[in-house]
């Protein structure tokens, strides 16, 4: 009897969660479909050249952010775990700063420092895009660092590093051929979280006047009624595709770790 009651409670919670997540989506879809003729909001959205150009721009910026972020965070997290574990709490604190420093403060800081000589980054498109990437690296720090840190903690990096060293490997080889392949799932998680942040981010891209997806969505919502809902759903779908990609790529279980287990 008790077990049955527990089962009902579980289903009730599950149902509430489903409603919580899907009701807004259903409402958005319902609103987008109110456009006449039906689906015209979706067709209008994808026919707008700015939709794809802004999406492509954000994707490129997202990929650059991921590459730069990984190049910065993986060696840092690896070194901290291996050589200076005492500094871990300090590094964790630093990576949490984007939660307490608003994006608007960050972008004003960036513009103030990098809009005048000797570092006039904002004077060129490439310079502004570089600043955007830098801003996104900071924004994605909490997610990327945690993903990498969790991945590193799941493997015995000290033994793996020492084993590779004893076989003649240097630091670059160790990170590239031993550590990174074993962090694949963690890196993918961090990467897609970063991509999701970049695709939806508005403040930094807007203040730096970048043709990114976030400002485009915002502009669209000021000009049109149903299309923003359709674009929101499309971007949501893209995010879900990214998540499915994580699950699909992470499905390969070659990297299962069973160090130290006696059989």
């Amino acid at each position, binding site marked *: 009897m008790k077990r049955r009651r527990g089962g009902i409670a579980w289903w009730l919670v599950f149902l509430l969660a489903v409603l919580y997540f899907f009701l807004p989506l259903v409402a958005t879809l319902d609103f987008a479909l109110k456009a006449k003729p039906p689906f015209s909001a979706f067709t209008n959205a994808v026919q707008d050249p700015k939709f794809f150009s802004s999406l492509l721009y954000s994707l490129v910026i997202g990929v650059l952010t991921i590459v730069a972020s990984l190049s910065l965070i993986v060696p840092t997290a690896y070194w901290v775990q291996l050589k200076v574990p005492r500094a871990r709490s300090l590094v964790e604190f630093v990576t949490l700063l984007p939660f307490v420093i608003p994006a608007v403060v960050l972008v004003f800081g960036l513009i103030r420092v990098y809009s005048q000589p000797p570092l006039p980054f904002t004077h060129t498109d490439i310079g502004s895009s570089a600043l955007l990437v830098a801003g996104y690296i900071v924004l994605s720090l909490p997610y990327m660092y945690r993903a990498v840190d969790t991945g590193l903690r799941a493997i*015995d990096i000290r033994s793996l590093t*020492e*084993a590779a060293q004893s*076989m*003649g490997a240097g630091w670059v080889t160790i990170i590239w051929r031993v550590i990174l392949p074993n962090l694949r799932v963690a890196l993918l998680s961090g990467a897609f979280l970063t991509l999701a942040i970049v695709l939806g981010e508005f403040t930094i891209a807007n203040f730096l006047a970048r043709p990114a997806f976030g400002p485009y969505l915002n502009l669209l919502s000021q000009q049109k009624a149903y299309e923003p809902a359709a674009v929101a759903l499309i971007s949501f779908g893209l995010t879900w595709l990214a998540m499915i990609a994580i699950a699909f790529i992470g499905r390969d279980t070659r990297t299962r770790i*069973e160090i130290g287990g006696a*059989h």
Partner: protein
Amino acid sequence: MGFLELTHVKKAFGSFTAVEDFMLSAEPGEFVSFLGPSGCGKTTTLRMIAGFEYPDSGSIKVDGREITNLPPNKRNVGMVFQAYALFPNMTVADNVGFGMRIKKQPKVAIKKRVGELLELINMPEKADRYPYQLSGGQQQRVALARALAIEPQVLLLDEPLSALDAKIRVSLRTEIRSIQRKLGITTVYVTHDQEEALSLSDRVVVMSQGRIEQIGTPFEIYNFPATAFVATFVGTLNALHADVVDAAAGIVSIGGQQIRLARPLDRADHRKTVEIALRPEIITLRDAAGDANRLTGTVDRVTFLGSIVRVRIVLDGGDVVSFDTFNNPHLAVPADGERVTVSFPPEACLVLDQSVAEIKAAVAQAEDGLLPGVDSASDIRP
């Protein structure tokens, strides 16, 4: 000049001295084990040979080449870890060939060598498996093959069997020794398991609190321990409190029963009590002929353990002696409560300068990380 030379090696972590004045000279092809309780410095010493730690002073040489301050990837020293440390993203063959790929050896040579090594560890059919698909024993064999693949000058094994179950441990240690003999590679093996150290090694280095207590063959270590610590840590023994009766004649009394030692007690006088250690296998129930020592007592407990029978005797003075005797269905085993006399030769009596209880307490504290400032035991003589 040995092949592997450690001279006055010292290493401290803050105020804690992990290794002090370590001296070792290992010959080519020799199998040397570092034996001691946790925290005695054996793994730190091994890691200094591997290059994962650097000594504060002293030098390490391999085949005359100074490697003290070389990074680990420049030493040509193979290492096998307790946790296997196989690369989870690589197959068995890729793991074994990793070091050779780092050295940019031709693919054909790598494939040939990997095949040979997999034959050597009896796992040729497992080349395409991933580490998680192997048992612990198999993983450790792959780790051994991987360490050997780079043809290291010295092979280091850091408690490689301690994560395995007892049965695999015994079979794998035989395999390790046979491979080591076949390849003739100089090997340093760290263990806290005395049976492993004694059965595998050409020489054993017994360590305690960062210092070498004794270096010797397993036979010497067991039969002629240089310090009370070695006597206590290696093998089992009976510790008996004895009053000195005649120091010059080497006569002591255990609970009123006099026994003779092989040598006089120079530093003891008749008021001093000493602790006598007796290996259980040297004690016999038979009344030995000649000048053997004899002690009388009452059988307290007889435990049948299959191939052996363990007999515990309370001596007339209250001391307890335990010993094992081989099971023989044609010989009568004493019964509980029976009066018996045990005998042993004077040479079997080891006079300890430090009490067994003190040493055991120091080891227990060291293993708990408390590391008391107890001096190591001074010399003992049979």
